[in-house]
């Protein structure tokens, strides 16, 4: 047994790795017995609520809490955003918390909120975001952040050499995270120096320190607890004003627990969104399909900090490129990391443009991708293998037809499309950025390896052997060369005496156990009702690489969840804002719509495993499969109806408009 190295076992020696195991918390979650932060009721608990700014852009001029403070049942009042906070009380989105209160029950807390008088100075706001900004005007305005122009190769002459070019619009709107469990916490002070915080978070290890910093106390005095998180998708990594407020209200109320959970409307309006991304794209290729040139003018918004530039063309190393990006500042709840930040939007734009180009070339997109597979370096080989697997699962080659060629006016129209996606993240400690499996399993594996080594060292004398001669197998510690000399696990552990072994695994650590950067291929089969513009998913195939698969069932679940989330953002999701009032309109889940089980069609997942994949170690899979569904579905619809519906979500209004426009232009391509 080699000392001091860590290695995932060979395929022949794997006992549990790669086996179909059930999720440990599956039964409690499915049966509703799992308790989330939202479900908590602590002894003597108070209910928190807050005054929220009704304007998208305003300045808090004065706050009068005196009436609320005198109300019976109101136990604490805490100003979160006063006239002197931030930039002189300036508020940048509707729904910003201004004053928090804690009271004996929810109605009293509501009454207290209504009794607080806040005077605002309204400032001009902008909440819409889908219009193409005029570059010259954008350069002069503070509402736009114009990124510097980027050039790769020689785009001008590449477009001149291109025998076929295509120009089009692509994009996706701002959407929200829509966590089923809203954000929030229950805070209490067991004594004046210690904070006990139940919080809905993706970041149990890091959140305590963030709270400690915010209220200026030692991090070691903050105890954070969470049994389950009801969804985060990137929006529950950091600390929120309402989280700090709960702790402060509890302190003011003498340490009793204060529960502060957002309601659905506030969750949707303020607790995170995915920025929009729109682009006007021009692409050029030779007649044989060789991709030569890319040009894009892109823009997007997602709150007061304009989103950063887009890395488009996504994944493809197009040899000649010209790119311009404009970030739009607007007054909506700020964006947060959303399951593979920016990747789905970039994929929609890139694959939409390339799919349209392939159609113009008269090529099957599958062949177009294979033709240009070298531009997918360094994952060309993975993508190529995955394309073949996906082709099998979808029967792509047997079913593909040229655009709009599915019996022109018949309904429904069916079509298939394919999509490639990619994702690459450095691991971190929170459960975000697809790093959990890499971080957790490697650390656990290292810890288990260390523990085993220490155990062996302790029991070797009892077996009259050297530690190096021992192995652990079938629940026993035995001499490798003589299995008759062995101890059961229990007997072995009893040799440890009173002192148990405590070993912590770390990541990153020794040995190459994790990797990052994966490739995936997805295909979609849709039907489009051309009279109503309604799109239905028939089948989706996701072929995904994620290195060594520890638990196939859970890995597949991740992919299925991502595909379902993908159907939602492709067909339904959109944060609808009202420019007049500056507020969000669809603040309820009956009009902020998510896919239901009847909407997702047949979902097929295939994980790439075996030689060439396993030895790369574990790679996160939480994010990559979310990247492609939007593009896959959009391309399938384009293939079905013969015309591109430029922007997601693919709702009847947009689909019908695209069809009408195409008919106006003299029928379909």
């Amino acid at each position, binding site marked *: 047994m080699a000392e001091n190295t860590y290695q995932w076992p060979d395929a022949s020696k794997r006992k549990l790795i790669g086996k179909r195991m059930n999720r440990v918390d599956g039964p409690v979650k499915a049966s509703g017995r799992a308790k989330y932060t939202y479900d908590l009721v602590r002894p003597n608990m108070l209910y928190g609520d807050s005054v929220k700014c009704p304007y998208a852009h305003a300045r808090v001029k004065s706050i009068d809490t005196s009436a609320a403070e005198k109300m019976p049942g109101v136990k604490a009042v805490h100003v979160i955003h006063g006239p002197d906070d931030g930039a002189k009380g300036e508020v940048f989105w509707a729904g910003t918390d201004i004053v928090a209160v804690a009271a004996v029950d929810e*109605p009293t807390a509501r009454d207290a909120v209504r009794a607080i008088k806040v005077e605002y100075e309204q400032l001009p706001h902008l909440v819409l975001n889908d219009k193409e900004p005029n570059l010259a005007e954008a350069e002069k305005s503070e509402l736009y952040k114009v990124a510097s122009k980027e050039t790769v190769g020689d785009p001008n002459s590449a477009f001149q050499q291109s025998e076929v070019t295509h120009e089009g619009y692509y994009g996706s709107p701002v959407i929200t995270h829509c966590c089923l469990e809203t954000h929030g916490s229950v805070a209490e002070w067991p004594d004046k120096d210690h904070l006990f915080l139940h919080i809905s978070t993706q970041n149990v290890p890091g959140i305590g320190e963030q709270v400690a910093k915010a209220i200026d106390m030692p991090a070691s005095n903050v105890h954070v607890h969470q049994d389950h998180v009801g969804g985060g998708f990137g929006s529950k990594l950091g600390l929120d004003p309402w989280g700090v407020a709960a702790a402060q209200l509890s302190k003011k109320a003498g340490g009793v627990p204060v529960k502060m959970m957002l309601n659905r409307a506030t969750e949707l309006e303020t607790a995170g969104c995915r920025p929009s991304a729109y682009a006007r794209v021009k692409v050029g290729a030779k007649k044989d399909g060789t991709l030569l040139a890319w040009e894009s003018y892109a823009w997007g918004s997602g709150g007061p900090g304009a989103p950063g530039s887009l890395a488009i063309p996504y994944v493809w190393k197009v040899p000649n490129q010209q790119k311009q990006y404009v970030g739009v500042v607007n007054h909506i709840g700020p964006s947060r990391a959303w399951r593979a930040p920016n990747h789905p939007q970039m994929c929609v734009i890139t694959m939409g443009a390339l799919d349209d180009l392939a159609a113009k070339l008269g090529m099957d997109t599958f062949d177009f991708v294979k033709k240009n597979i070298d531009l997918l370096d360094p994952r060309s080989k993975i993508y190529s293998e995955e394309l073949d697997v996906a082709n099998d699962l979808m029967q792509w080659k047997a079913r593909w037809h040229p655009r709009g060629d599915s019996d022109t006016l018949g309904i429904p129209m069916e079509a298939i499309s394919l999509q490639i996606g990619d994702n690459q993240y450095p691991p971190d400690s929170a459960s975000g950025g697809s790093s959990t499996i890499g971080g957790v399993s490697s650390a656990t594996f290292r810890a288990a390896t260390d523990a085993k080594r220490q155990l062996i060292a302790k029991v070797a004398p009892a077996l009259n052997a050297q530690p190096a001669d021992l192995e652990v197998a079938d629940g026993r510690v035995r001499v490798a060369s003589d299995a008759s000399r062995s101890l059961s696990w229990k007997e072995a552990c009893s040799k440890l005496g009173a002192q148990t072994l405590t070993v912590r695994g770390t990541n990153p650590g020794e040995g190459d156990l994790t990797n990052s950067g994966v490739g995936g291929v997805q295909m979609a089969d849709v039907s489009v009702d051309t009279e109503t513009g309604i799109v239905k998913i028939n089948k989706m195939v996701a072929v995904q690489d994620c290195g060594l698969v520890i638990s196939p069932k859970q890995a597949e679940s991740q992919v299925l969840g991502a595909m379902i989330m993908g159907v939602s953002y492709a067909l339904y999701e959109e944060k609808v804002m009202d420019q007049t009032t500056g507020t969000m309109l669809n603040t309820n889940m009956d009009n902020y719509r998510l896919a239901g089980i009847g909407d997702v069609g047949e979902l097929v997942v295939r994980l790439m495993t075996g030689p060439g994949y396993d030895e790369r170690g574990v790679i996160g899979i939480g994010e990559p499969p979310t990247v492609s569904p939007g593009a896959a579905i959009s391309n399938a619809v384009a293939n079905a109806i013969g015309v591109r519906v430029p922007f997601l979500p693919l709702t*009847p209004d947009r689909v019908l408009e695209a069809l009408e426009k195409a008919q106006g232009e003299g029928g379909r391509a």
Partner: protein
Amino acid sequence: MRAFEYASPKQKQQAVGLLGQQWGDAEVLAGGSDLLALMKDDIVHPKRLVNVKELPELRGITFNASRGLRIGSLMTLSEISEDAQVKEHHPMLAHAAGEAASPQIRNVATIGGNMCQRPRCWWFRNGFGLLATAPDGKSLVLQGDNRYHAILGNDGPAYFVSPSSLAPALIAYNARIRLFGPKGPREIPLEKFFVIPKSENEREHDLRPNEIVTDVIVPAPPSGVKASHYEVRQKAAFDWPYATASVVLDMNGDTVRSARVVMSHVAPIPWVSNEAAQALAGKTISEQTADAAGAAAVANAKSLGRNKYKIKLAHVAVKRAVLQAAKGGQA
């Protein structure tokens, strides 16, 4: 939610006595699937809730040949969709009840509550009032995102759409609604129960603040009637339709003797289209006549800016309901 008083009377006289003289004093509580959401969102804040679920007279489904079907206002959408008599005599109603919302909602949602449910207009639901008027008196709907708003009966000041998908099916069958108030019962055609409010303190129903809905009466349709209800809905369930059409065709052999065409989610009230009915009268049903009926149904429709596509969807809903009815439909 604000604090409120709760009453659960055992007799309907008592119930109406507990209701208020004006809106805002009290609200009737049935399944609560709409009312509780409105209260949590602080859209309505009654001082008192009057639970009617302990009034036995409000229950039951019975059928007799002369009066037709009587459905007590407390019957749930699930009960209606599964009832043998409803399925036999008014299958389109059973179908429409079974399509609405989701199984969980259908198990608690009552037909009385379904008739009286409030509009889903997103300004209304976010506290900007039933008519969604800005402080300067201008309509928020006209200057904002009105993708789900009315395409018919939309001369203002109301632009929301009537949310019930059962009401049009019932109206197509010429249903009547029975109400009970301090002065006793009254019965009116269901079609007349829905009104377009002209000011912020009016409601969308001909219901006084101290009246309750007791039953819905659906006459037995003449034999040989063909009926069908069609919904244009993007999601498979738990979603609001963009447009629905309920069509009842009284047939004389292959020809339509007379027709009732009622649409929903297109106007502030369930929209009875006499134009579509006329387009069908005396015709045999074909793709062309069905399409012509759809076109007639939306001939007077107008877009508010973002909802032009709904004109097409309403047209298609009528066309498909007519074709489906002619094929035997749900009747």
